[in-house]
């Protein structure tokens, strides 16, 4: 391409790039800037001072921050694993159906279409038993309804994603394997899994990023309790920013969450670049 043409290309793309920068980058940069300040809306006598990285130091030396990170990571690991395993089972089952696949596929998506807040409330009511184990007063048991609600809601999403991947696999591969006497399990591990890898990766990345930002389902079910035993990092940030109105410190927390999810997304793009977005070779 000639240099002049390239320059003109950039010039033409400039307005669009500027809009993207303004919309996507603007708020992020503003949050980064704000995070360098002491800015407590409710304590105006402290003023609004530039304090460098002190907000970040405060977060990193606060046990509640690390506990919240721990909760988030644990929640993501458990719920995403369950969703992928169950979603895969569901997808394989639906894929092997000979009739009514369309109807099932639509029905399957219903839980996913229910607003998360409603899902959370329904599951909370189910677990608010007047006798027996009090789920929401036990630091470990309180996770059970939360994870169940999340898995119930998002497994269908994973399943549909994987079903699309399954339907891309050439049927003749299975026929050939059968001729060679491969068992069903051997076919699954030898053909299905390797060829489904790109779709699995997409599901994994989407769900992990989502799970890392979990807020609504926990907010309506436990509010982060008992104590702070189910408080994820997004809820801690919410409490700091919107309940205590500590804009500086809250921005520092937001920037850190953004950093982690951004890294996750980058890793995902790199991984997917190696095949996920490309048609699997037949």
């Amino acid at each position: 391409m000639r240099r002049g043409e390239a320059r003109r290309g950039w010039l033409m793309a400039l307005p669009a790039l500027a809009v993207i920068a303004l919309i996507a980058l603007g708020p992020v940069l503003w949050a980064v800037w704000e995070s360098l300040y002491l800015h407590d809306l409710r304590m105006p006598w402290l003023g609004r001072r530039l304090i460098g990285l002190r907000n970040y130091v405060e977060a990193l030396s606060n046990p509640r921050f690390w506990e919240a990170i721990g909760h988030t990571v644990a929640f993501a690991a458990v719920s995403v694993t369950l969703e992928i395993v169950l979603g895969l089972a569901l997808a394989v089952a639906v894929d092997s159906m000979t009739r009514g696949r369309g109807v099932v596929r639509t029905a399957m998506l219903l839980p996913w279409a229910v607003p998360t807040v409603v899902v959370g409330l329904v599951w909370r009511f189910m677990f608010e038993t007047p006798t027996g184990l009090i789920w929401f007063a036990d630091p470990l048991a309180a996770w059970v309804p939360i994870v169940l609600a999340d898995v119930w809601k998002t497994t269908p999403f994973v399943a549909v994603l994987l079903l699309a991947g399954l339907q891309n696999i050439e049927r003749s591969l299975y026929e050939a394997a059968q001729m060679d006497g491969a068992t069903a399990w051997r076919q699954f591990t030898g053909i299905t899994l390797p060829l489904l890898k790109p779709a699995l990766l997409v599901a994994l990345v989407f769900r992990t990023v989502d799970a890392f930002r979990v807020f609504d389902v926990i907010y309506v079910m436990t509010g982060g309790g008992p104590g702070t035993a189910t408080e994820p990092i997004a809820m801690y940030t919410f409490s700091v920013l919107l309940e205590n109105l500590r804009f500086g410190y809250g921005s520092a927390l937001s920037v850190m969450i953004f950093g982690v999810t951004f890294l996750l997304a980058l890793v995902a793009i790199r991984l997917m670049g190696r095949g996920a977005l490309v048609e699997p070779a037949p």
Partner: protein
Amino acid sequence: MQRCFRKPSADITAVIKAVSGHARDGERTIVSVVREIGCALATLLCTAVVLGCARTDPHVLTFAGSAVGREGEAIRRQLDRFQRMHPEIRVEVQSTPDAADHRHQLYVQWLNARAADPDVLQLDVVWAPEFAAAGWILDLDRFRPDVQDFFPATLTATRWNGTLYALPWFVDVGMLYWRTDVMDRAPMNLDELRDQAARGMREHAIPYGFVWQGARYEGLVTVFLEYLGAFGGGILDDHGGVVVDSDRAVAALTSMRDSIYADQFVPALVLTWQEEQARLAFQNGQAVFMRNWPYAYGLLQDPVQSRVAGRFGIAPMPAASGGSPTAALGGSVLAINANSGDVDAAYQLIEYLLEPPQLLDRARIAGQYPPRPTMYESQELEDALRIVPADARRIIEHAVPRPATPIYSELSQILQIAVHRALTRQQEPRDALQRAATDMRALLARTELEGQHP
């Protein structure tokens, strides 16, 4: 679609033409167009001036607070009467969210932006020092208010650095509801309460001995405050120092925890309960004792929904040895926006709302307890609240305000977490309170409030 879009603008042109006297069709000289534009601008300007006048009129007051349900009915009636007495003042009600947290957040946004509206604010009692320290509400000492006839505790809660910033409007106190069909008299101390609860559960087959508010929220802190007082402990001392990790405080929290797991007369369910769950359990006859606010009284006396109507009484929360019966003090206070355009009219309104007849009216309509002790001698208040006023007065006199500090909300958040952790057996009471005390001291240092106190 196209037609819909065009029509209004055509109408506007016609109006402008009519106004400017150029409605004749076909005539469109440059002069006429200029005149039309000029006329339109003039109209706009006039509108702006009129609107501007309305906004800067010194005699329009805005009141912000609870304006729904019975409280809304009460305030509207009162404001109508006020306006009839003061024809030169007009009062508008600015409705605010009912949930305390949301209302607080809205107030902070308004006041932080130095808005002149609302002029008069209904504040939760614990917000007064916060807004005072921020410089958002006016000191009221300048009006030399007569504070003789207020419960002393209600005034303590509205002072900051020795200055009065708000006046009490109505009082909320934590009290013990007890079943008159299960025992002859209210328990004198916590041991008696435990024994009577156990006996009631055993002999009357009542499932719960004692229910309170144990979910992780502000209500839990008020219950904890009452136990603290019962054991002679506190959150902050008189000099603003943190004492919530004292031995007495640990004993108080341990007693709360033992009542659930060791003595088992408090169901672990309360750890997820707020006021209404406790009220429903007591109302259905499922509890021997309940700790709750005055609002429950009228509802429990209603035979249509309550199974215990006429079979319960109220008493101060009992104490352990070494402490004293303690009631957490809640309620609302009235304050004036520091940027209000007409502070004298605003103060007139506050004075009016705090007159005994107005407080009585509120008691009658909304069931709220007046902050003036002398009113508790009147038969009228007994009729309005359907309680024995002497009982209520005795409880309010035991009332203890929550720490009057600008950072109360943050302190409370720390305590909510610590107490809930200990009660759900994630931490030992001493460890939980020590961690809370450390966090609270760090908070005081960060906010440069160490050594400052009411």
